[in-house]
């Protein structure tokens, strides 16, 4: 009799567990179904993004072409007037400095990679990762060493460029980029390579376990800014 009762209780518990399992199961499947629906929406969003990206890419190429044509027209229109010719040269020169045209020249390439020994390292894991402030500091030091043009993963450093941390990636010029960070700079390579100095920021990062390389080169190409700088709040003071 007691044996039967024990068995009944065991079976009862099992039935309960089984029912519970099935119940949870059904609920999970129900929520999964709804997220499959959401997946479709996400896919549509992805398609939309790709569409706009493509439109952007095409327009960007057209813009580059148009700007070249504009420069030709401007040269043509100013060639008979020395004053205007000077202004024309200032515009062309200015566009290189502000990042509105692609430029080439001698310089250095600095590559920053997240440290590898994250799991085993006794170092603080966040130390071996490249941070927004690291990239910002390297750019600041490059400018200090006389860099005339800088890009980070082909994003041109312009007047309004800021670097912002977003988890494992950083936002720059509205684009999200992740490690490795390839920082290109045009300037006198010997000066720019001065960033390798003892006690400098690069050495500091190496000490933290970040992968750092610096390579000099005779010809570095830095692309044009991928966006447009529009002023909404700012006005030039009228010359009196």
């Amino acid at each position, binding site marked *: 009799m007691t044996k039967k009762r024990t*068995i009944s209780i*065991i*079976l009862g518990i*099992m039935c309960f*567990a*089984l029912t519970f*399992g099935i119940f949870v199961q059904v609920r999970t499947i129900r929520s999964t179904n709804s*997220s499959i629906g*959401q*997946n479709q929406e*996400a896919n549509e*969003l992805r398609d*939309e*993004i790709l569409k*706009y990206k493509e439109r*952007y890419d095409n*327009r960007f190429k057209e*813009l580059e072409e*148009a*700007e070249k044509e*504009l420069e030709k*027209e*401007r040269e*043509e*229109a*100013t060639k*008979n*007037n020395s004053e*205007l010719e000077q*202004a024309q040269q*200032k*515009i062309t020169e*200015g566009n*290189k*400095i*502000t990042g*509105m045209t692609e430029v*080439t*020249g*001698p310089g250095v390439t600095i590559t920053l990679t997240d440290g590898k020994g994250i799991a085993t390292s006794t170092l603080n894991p966040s130390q071996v990762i490249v941070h927004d*402030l690291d990239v910002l*500091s390297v750019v600041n*030091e490059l*400018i*200090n060493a006389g*860099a*005339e043009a800088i890009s980070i993963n082909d994003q041109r450093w*312009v007047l*309004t460029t*800021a*670097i912002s941390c977003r988890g494992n990636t950083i*936002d720059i010029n*509205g684009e999200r980029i992740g490690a490795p960070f390839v920082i290109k700079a045009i*300037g006198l390579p010997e000066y720019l390579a001065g960033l390798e100095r003892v006690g400098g920021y690069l050495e500091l990062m190496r000490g933290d376990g970040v992968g750092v390389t610096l390579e000099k080169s005779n010809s570095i190409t830095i692309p044009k800014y991928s*966006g447009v*700088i529009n002023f909404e709040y*700012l*006005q*030039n*003071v009228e010359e009196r």
Partner: protein
Amino acid sequence: MKKGKIAMTITIGIACFALVTVMMMQFKVVNETDITAIEDMQESELKTQLANWKTRYEEIDAQYQEVAQRIEEYKNDEESNNEASRLVQEELEQTNTLLGLTDVHGEGIVITLKSGEDGAAISADDLLVIVNALKFAGAEAISINDERIVNTTDIVYISAGSFIKVNGQRILEPYVIKVIGNQSHMESAVTGTGGKVEELQTLGHTVTIEKDNDITIGKYNGEIETKYIE
């Protein structure tokens, strides 16, 4: 007796098997659900990305239209020198504005920083981080102690003499950062929990922020010259 025991064992065995199978299925579904949870997170991200690319396309498109129009204007007015002159001057002014070679004005805020009596002084990195945060929030012009921030501005600490240089010029406390841009965006870029202002105040430094509806920021005073870019 024996027969009943066997039947019982088999029943329990089957029940166990069923239970385990259901559990396994359950784990599998739960695992997949975790992935869809990430996808859910990505969806709001995707929406932001889409808005971002839409804006970028519209901006680049507007710029393209402007350049195309300018080309037309040059083409039409090739004969008239006056018209060409106007066009060139207009372009030059735009370039100079981007270079920071013009005095500018507009709404914005003024941030004044003064180091506390004890402890470390406000550093060049602090200023660099504030400038970066302001730029990220859409600042259109910035100056520190009237040194205009241009795209080739460096902010460095000179240990021999312990002072900060901006654009190669020595600046002294108090540091006055003027910024032109949307006032509330500028303010929230540096204030708030975990913001740079809070951090500096906790360290004992004095920070004041004033809104101003018409700030004037002077032009960059140095020479902008290049030797290496082509």
